[in-house]
């Protein structure tokens, strides 16, 4: 499997950053960066990461199930993550998540039929003092109201 030149460069540097004989250490970061490019963690990707990190494919596979950001099925092009943990919940996070479900017409970890959006109710993502918070892909949005969420979603729709 080949990745983009930028990612190949990143992986080359990554594998050198750990002590000799410890390439296995790159498994988690390699999976998440690769997933961003391939869209999901496939059997092929697992085999590729296993080869590069010099471990058995099973040792990569067992890691995939553990981390909540690693996905075996593709997410939407825009993955909307709404936090409902305590700090967000106290200032409208739960209502915001319910609004997002209605707006997108999908539920937790579901993808819209056109593949544009997916939704996830997430745990604390470290934006407690700027709650309620939403992360779309890797972009943080703070103090999000239902109206603001609508705007964010519409802006993304227009872009694609």
């Amino acid at each position, binding site marked *: 499997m080949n990745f983009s030149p930028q990612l190949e460069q990143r992986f080359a540097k990554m594998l050198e*950053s750990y*002590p000799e004989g*410890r390439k*296995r*250490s*790159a*498994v*988690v*970061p390699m*999976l*998440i*960066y690769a997933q961003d490019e391939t869209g999901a963690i496939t059997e092929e990707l697992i085999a590729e990461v296993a080869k590069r*990190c010099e*471990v058995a494919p099973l*040792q990569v596979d*067992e*890691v995939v199930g*553990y*981390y*909540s*950001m*690693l996905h075996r099925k593709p997410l939407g092009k825009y993955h909307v993550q709404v936090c*409902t*943990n*305590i*700090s967000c*919940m*106290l*200032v409208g996070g739960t209502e915001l998540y319910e609004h997002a479900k209605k707006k997108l017409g999908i539920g937790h970890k579901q993808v819209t039929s056109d593949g544009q959006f997916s939704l996830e109710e997430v*745990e*604390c*993502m*470290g*934006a*407690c*003092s*700027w*709650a309620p918070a939403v*992360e779309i892909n*890797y*972009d*943080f949005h*703070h*103090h999000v109201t239902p109206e603001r969420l609508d705007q964010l979603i519409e802006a993304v729709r227009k872009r694609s």
Partner: protein
Amino acid sequence: MPTKLYNEPSPLETRVLSKRFGLADSHTLDVYLANDGFKAFLKAHEMTPAQIIDEVKASALRGRGGAGFPTGLKWSFVPRTSPKPKYIVINADESEPGTCKDRLLMEYDPYQMIEGILIAGMAMDSHKGYLYIRGEYRYLLDHMDKVIAEAYSRGYLGKNIAGTGFDFDLYTHSGAGAYECGEETALLDSLEGKRGIPRMKPPFPAVAGAWASPTLLNNVETFSSIPVIIRDGGPAFAALGTPKNGGTRLVCISGHVNKPGVYELPLGFPMLKAIYEVAGGIPGGKKLKAVVPGGSSCPILKADECDIPMDYDTLAKIGSMLGSGGMVVLDETTDMVKFALRIMRFYAHESCGWCIPCREGTTWLRKILQRFDDGGGRHDDVALLGELSKNMLGRTFCALGDAAAMPTISIVDKFAADFEKRLAGSAKSQLVVV
């Protein structure tokens, strides 16, 4: 436009770690150098490792990740003369609900943290560090990669740093979504490419940590506190706080307050003053109901318990913890059943499943609380929640089991009336004969 995460300085704050926040390009080497940057590193270069550690001990700095362990003591556990390589691991897996401070330290003053890491490196004879950042903070991983590249190109990382002859390599390492990886031994397993499962202790990471080598693990804020300690001296830092609780810390105030934010306050700062003056009080003039003092795993405090100074020992005395600095304020309208349920949904989701009391306990607690919230509560549920939680305490490899049990015990104990009230209004509860 990304939100500016720091507040306008408040006269009530003591800005030590956050003093450069707000300066233009505060994340760059030039701005750092123009504002006391790397003076501590050069000073530490003239000191012996034992003197560095003694200075940290004298500062009464305690770990800012949550456990509050004395930092100088932790540093002294790493066997400097071990023939194995020594590693430094920086815990930037900030995931404790209510906590959002390490983001600012990395975004606005990354060199302060790097300088702290380098000083630790000199004290431990360590030459390699790994900055473990949670996967959700991708923008910070990218940001830190750029900062680290600048530091290498300007000779502040790599070989012969700032002409001192000291070498140090620093790398970022991405997590991929797991609260458990904030626990130091689970973080090490994750760093080694495995599922983040806590390890049996001893051996402690200081002796056998990353790749079975001696490893120093500290939180971002702990490392960020080191430069000022070395530059101005441990006693000066200690004097900012209260005895055995040195310095200042970034307190993340969230929930029902008018001005939520991250504020730098000295240890021992009055909690009520933090809520009513620093954070501007409770919206709508509502009454205070409860406070989560330092992240969701800390036992909750009732309003009448909050007239206290915020230091580790005072919080311990009243049966809670100062934790990670995540202070969540709840007003009188808060539904404590829903609050307890949300906390338990979190812990049940995040339990790594390694220890049965945690895996099963959090799941059962979540189910009971969910049933209760759905209107199917039973009269003996309050006692059952308490008993189940108490059976988890101290019976797991790591602190996640305790972290789930402690808030639950305190909520059902201190807010039993809220549970009773919900029971009275529930039709199903009438059907249960106890």
